[in-house]
């Protein structure tokens, strides 16, 4: 298992973390936002996940889907997109795709609140 985009970013533009030790899944997403052609682009994105295989797969997939997109496009990425890109998840694992979507949105929110300052 070698999920893509695993790791940290030095000086990330934003980070998002979801989950908790009680439920057993924790995901952290780091994003680097750069301006290209007047638009804000998710130039680089990395994730760290403590969780089951589905949690790792969904967090990796959400970073794959988001990389290189505009912020506006990235915000629209849904848990369904993640599950579909993985060609489906077992019903009991669907909640993992929730977490992935949340983690990404959290990271983007973090960037936006930082840049407002």
């Amino acid at each position, binding site marked *: 298992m070698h999920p893509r985009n695993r790791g940290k970013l030095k000086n990330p533009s934003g980070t998002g973390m979801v989950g908790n030790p009680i439920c057993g899944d924790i995901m952290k997403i780091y994003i680097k936002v750069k301006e290209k052609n007047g638009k804000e682009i998710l130039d680089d994105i990395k994730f760290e*996940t*403590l969780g*089951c295989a589905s949690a790792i797969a969904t967090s990796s997939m959400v970073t794959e889907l988001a990389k290189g997109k505009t912020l506006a496009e990235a915000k629209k990425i849904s848990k369904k997109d993640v599950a579909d890109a993985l060609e489906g998840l077992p019903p009991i694992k669907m909640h993992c795709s929730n977490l992935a979507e949340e983690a990404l949105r959290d990271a983007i929110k973090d960037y936006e609140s930082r840049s407002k300052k």
Partner: protein
Amino acid sequence: MKRIYLDYAATTPVDKEVLKEMLPYFSIKFGNAASLHSFGIEANKGVEKARSILAKYFNAQPEEIVFTSGATESNNLSLKGVVKQHQLKNKEKVHIITTAFEHHCVLDASKSLERFGLAEVTYILPDKDGIINVKDIEKAIKPNTLLISVMYVNNEIGTVQPIKEIGKMIKELNKKRETKIVFHTDATQAVNYFDCDVNELNVDLMSMSAHKIYGPKGVGALYVRKGTPIIRVQDGGDQENRRRAGTHNVTGIVGLGKAIEVLAKKKKKDSARIQKLRDILIKKVLKEVPNSRLNGSLTKRSPNNANFSFKGIEGESLLMMLDNMGVACSTGSACSSQSLEPSHVILSLGLKHEDAHSSLRMTLGKYTKKEEITFAVRALKETIKRLRGVSGDVLSDYYSKK
């Protein structure tokens, strides 16, 4: 790919001799053991031979052995059968004492009795080493305590409970009690390695399963001490002295008998060899995998059990990656259970949720070889390194954020 089985506590392969003993009863001596003709008689002979073997092994009388479909049924029969029998004479709620880390079938049977208003149950917590304190059981006893159920060996962490001492304590107390307390133990994980003489243990009821001792699945037994007030839970025919209705699983019962016979011969030798391998496993893992811990007492432990927690790891992904490398184990992680709840056993030790989620159970058996342990440790190290590469510092980040 070579596969390495390290989940003997989940189930075991049927021993060659056991299979050989069972085969004629499928299609040659196939009769219903309750039939009066020659076909029934020869099938019945197989059943009674197995019964004698079990009685001898457990130091009981043949009529005190009841064949069931396995320990789950035996446990249900123990709890519900004793309560139901009592209810025939006395409609008041009874009190049951059991432990917080029993197997789910004992816990669920207890909860079911609570839900139906038949019993109030006290669940005793083990100490941090996974051992139940006799004094804690004694302190919980009330005038209306009817049944005490404590597992002999915990199935997840392998820790050994003081059954003999609890039994002795109950026996003494019963001398002065009008309503005698019935003492039950689930010995499923103990039969392979520990003394199960019912008089040494002072038990009234004892459950076991064939498929944990190199016998077939779908059959087990319940020892019922003569005079124990218990009523059957499965109604129907008069089999098993009206203790448990249903056509005998003749092949299974014959297999169970043979499994006990084989066990009696090889128990000591196998136990010693398995313990040695298991100790090597534990030593290597604790030494070579950073941030690892053993769950439960090292000394008061079943010779075949190792249960670890690894920081920064989740059990289901660990299990899947090990399985990809051919190594089969089990975990206490929520992600791997249908209910999404983490191991109640690990939590009962006072450990945190992440310890339950990161737990790995490796259980050895009589076919385990040294090379398999060596390979398994290597696979474990590699897998943990990779998974920690994925989880990074999220756990410590989570705590520092709070």
